[in-house]
């Protein structure tokens, strides 16, 4: 063997060892960077809502409480007005402080998302386990119902609902959305239950005389947890997308500030042409951050449940 060959081999050895070391650092799959970053982004938004409420003057969300269309600090609007420290993120076309608006509005979107998914998930888990374990007619009904409901876009049904009823509270909106996010956890759990019923370790547990509930909660649930989390995050995303969609159509709650409604008002007031970018841009950015956070969490969870995704 020539010496260059040998050197190349040593280099390859080194690279392999480095790669192996990197693998070790992620020995605990729940500590992968995607998951941490995603959770961090969402926590930052929650913190903005909580800490903001304590530190900032929330009276500024009322119409006419500030000068109109002021830009954020360090920028100038078309009328050459500079941003001022009193309203650091600028103000909108009807005299409201953008910072106060997002402090009030950002947690609302998360609240709708979490509430809708919590209800949807709980329903989904119960239905999924029922379908998988009971089988027969019950399974058929649940399966067909979820097949049917999964293709109906929630946004349209909610559009019909909200235009018929007018103002709707956040909680009501969350409840309505929950009716459309139970299907994928149901399918997921049903499929998992069916495949696990076949798998060795559940059969082993059955043979050793464990009861059905024991098997369900002690043997199967722990394995389902990463999938359930993933499904939960996905339904939070769907719920927020739907809620924001409604708000941007002007159909969300009318009396509380939401990010989507702020965007709706900005579009209606022609903020795009008037170059009032902060009016729609800041809520958009915040929502985008929220979605990126949710995506990162989902990717991180994928790595937990599918170790093969972990290779760099």
């Amino acid at each position, binding site marked *: 063997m020539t010496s260059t060959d040998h050197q190349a081999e040593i280099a390859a050895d080194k690279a392999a060892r480095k790669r192996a070391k990197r693998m070790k650092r992620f020995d605990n799959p729940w500590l992968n960077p995607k998951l941490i970053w995603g959770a961090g982004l969402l926590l930052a938004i929650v913190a903005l809502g909580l800490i903001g409420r304590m530190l900032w003057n929330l009276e500024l969300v009322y119409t006419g409480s500030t000068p109109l269309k002021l830009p954020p600090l360090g920028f100038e609007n078309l009328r050459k007005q500079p941003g001022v420290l009193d309203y650091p993120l600028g103000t909108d076309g009807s005299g409201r402080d953008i910072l106060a608006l997002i402090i009030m509005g950002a947690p609302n979107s998360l609240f709708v998302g979490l509430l809708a998914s919590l209800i949807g998930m709980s329903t989904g888990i119960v239905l999924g386990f029922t379908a998988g374990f009971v089988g027969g007619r019950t399974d058929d009904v649940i399966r*067909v119902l979820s097949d049917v*409901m999964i*293709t109906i*876009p929630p946004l349209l049904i909610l559009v019909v609902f909200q*235009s018929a009823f007018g103002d709707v509270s956040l909680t009501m909106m969350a409840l309505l959305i929950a009716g459309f996010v139970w299907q994928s956890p149901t399918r997921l759990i049903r499929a998992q239950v069916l495949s696990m019923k076949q798998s060795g370790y559940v059969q082993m547990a059955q043979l050793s005389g464990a009861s059905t509930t024991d098997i369900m909660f002690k043997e199967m649930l722990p394995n389902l947890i990463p999938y359930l989390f993933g499904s939960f995050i996905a339904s939070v995303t769907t719920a927020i*997308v739907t809620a924001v*969609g409604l708000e941007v159509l002007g159909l969300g709650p009318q009396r509380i500030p939401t990010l989507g409604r702020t965007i709706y008002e900005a579009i209606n007031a022609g903020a795009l042409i008037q170059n009032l970018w902060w009016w729609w841009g800041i809520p958009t950015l915040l929502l985008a951050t929220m979605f990126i956070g949710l995506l990162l969490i*989902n990717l991180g969870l994928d790595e937990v449940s599918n170790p093969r995704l972990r290779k760099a």
Partner: protein
Amino acid sequence: MGRIPRKYLINRLITLALTVLIAASMIWVIPRLSPVDPAEIALGRMASGAGAVANAEEILAQLRAQMGIDQPLIVQYFKYLKGALVFDFGLSTATFPTPVSALIAQALPWTLGLMILSLVITFVIGNLLGALMVWDHSPKLAKVAIPAAMVFTSIPPILSGLLLMWIFAAKLRWFPLTGAYGLTVDPGWNWAFVQSVLHHGFLPAMAIVIVTFGFWALGMRGLMITVQGEDYVKLAEAKGLKPRYILYRYMIRNAILPQITAFALKIGLLIAGQVLVERIFAYNGMGKLLYDAILDQDFPVIQGVSYVIILITALSVFIVDLIYPFIDPRIRHEGG
């Protein structure tokens, strides 16, 4: 070969019919639970136009008869279902007496055009990129650039639409701000019109593409990683087949199957997202029609638009299900 198993077909047909029935019923029931009386809305609109309306009660009764809401609920319901079958949703209250179906017929081609363009492009590009992320022989650039582009995934297209609109239409003025074609061109099969349509359609389509391709790419990546470990791919490699052939025929061909199912499941959400994009671009499609109807409280139009979009969704799912046995031989033989 090439036959769809009967049991499978019947199953899918039942699902299709149930989906349409349930959705149509929801759309019908919900407004009737509300205290708002559409006849009074119409009367109010007249009153605001004419100042005052004499013998209001008589006109209200007349309007109710015209809208068919003076009949028993059960009669109304079956009339509605019968009408829905032939796309008859009555008359628009905002642009009375234009039939709702005429308004929809005008808007639908735009929505379908944008939908086929953006959804199909997204699906193809997304899956291809996802596959390239895993394939051993892809260019290095692909493995760095694609994950970076993925940051936008799962942001709703309405937000990306706003951003694109601001940058490329309001600031740079490369593309028109709103509309589906320019006001100066004649609609028809002439080059100026086609050009204008493409020019106007580009941003809305891009708004959808940049935020949804990542969804497919991510899903495909996971599936490809699984397929890559399959014995048949290893054997294909041992057979000395060309890498590109293995990629298409052995890897993508098998990894794509769950993606097609996912497409069917996701299509409703994607179309709903597109409706919102149409709204902000004031694109002459179903989204704009829906939005205008919401502003006018024009219930027949809201119902009609929602029904047609749900029908498109359900039909797309049905078609995907019908194609599925042809691409997965295992379904064809087991009858799903």
